[in-house]
């Protein structure tokens, strides 16, 4: 079985390149804790719970100005036509596509149930989801416009444990 981290990186690449027309790079030195991504009111966060052979949640955190840029690329709309609803929908769909694609890349013979993505208060992220545990998977991606973070927090036993 391909590792969860590799599957997640493959998924992020496919989603950004195919649906957002964005080139990207993975910043292996940056973390949610040491980067600017976590600056409370300047970022938007989304959580998607999942269950399956292992369960947990996927967290997506994107600075608001980068999210506006991503929404523009995703929807093909001019900045002045983009609404808060568009930005919220975009981060939710980003979470949805990354989660679904990660699990099918990991093993498409196994079924995971994905919940409906929900926005969360970024001020709760530090308390509830940090620091990153050894078995969690955190990926910081650099795209045109800045860094954003994706993190899988596992409830149960990691498949590679």
């Amino acid at each position, binding site marked *: 079985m391909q590792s969860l981290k590799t599957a997640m990186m493959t998924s992020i690449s496919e989603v950004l390149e195919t649906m957002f027309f964005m080139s990207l790079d993975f910043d292996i030195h940056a973390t949610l804790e040491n980067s600017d991504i976590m600056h409370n009111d300047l970022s938007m966060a989304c959580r998607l719970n999942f269950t399956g052979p292992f369960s947990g949640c996927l967290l997506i955190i994107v600075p608001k100005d980068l999210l506006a840029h991503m929404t523009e690329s995703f*929807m093909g709309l001019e900045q002045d036509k983009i609404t808060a609803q568009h930005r919220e929908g975009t981060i939710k769909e980003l979470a949805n596509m990354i989660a*679904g694609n990660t699990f099918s890349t990991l093993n498409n013979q196994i079924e995971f149930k994905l919940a409906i993505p929900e926005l969360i208060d970024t001020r709760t992220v530090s308390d509830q989801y940090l620091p990153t545990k050894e078995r969690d998977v955190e990926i910081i991606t650099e795209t045109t416009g800045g860094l954003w973070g994706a993190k899988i927090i596992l409830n149960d036993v990691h498949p590679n444990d």
Partner: protein
Amino acid sequence: MTIKILIVDDSLPMRGVIKKTIKASGYAEAEFFEAENGKLALEILKNTWLDIVITDYNMPEMNGMELIKAMKQDNAFQATPVLVVTTEGSQQKVNEFLEQGAAGYIKKPFTPEAIRNKLIEILGELENAEPENSDDDLDF
């Protein structure tokens, strides 16, 4: 003849992306209807004759699988083809969609070509079809 397409997805941006992709794929004259979930889609189906329903799976109220099942149980629109466009990628789920009567399946993320090819497969080749903007090779 204008074809009528219902897009069912709880994501406003995704409905917009699918609509734009379809227009760029040679269906610029299509008439679009939108619903946020299967339940609202059934309301539209009761009042409108449609050529195809394009649905997500994971939605609140009524998901895509429940929508397909409901459609197949109703004589009025059991023949309307359903194309599933979803992040659900397990083989088991794909098989279930097809067993329940989906005419096709596309996994998100998708390319404009994937949408175009599947629509042609289901609805047939378009005559005189021109992409809405042929210069940008189906990008939007």
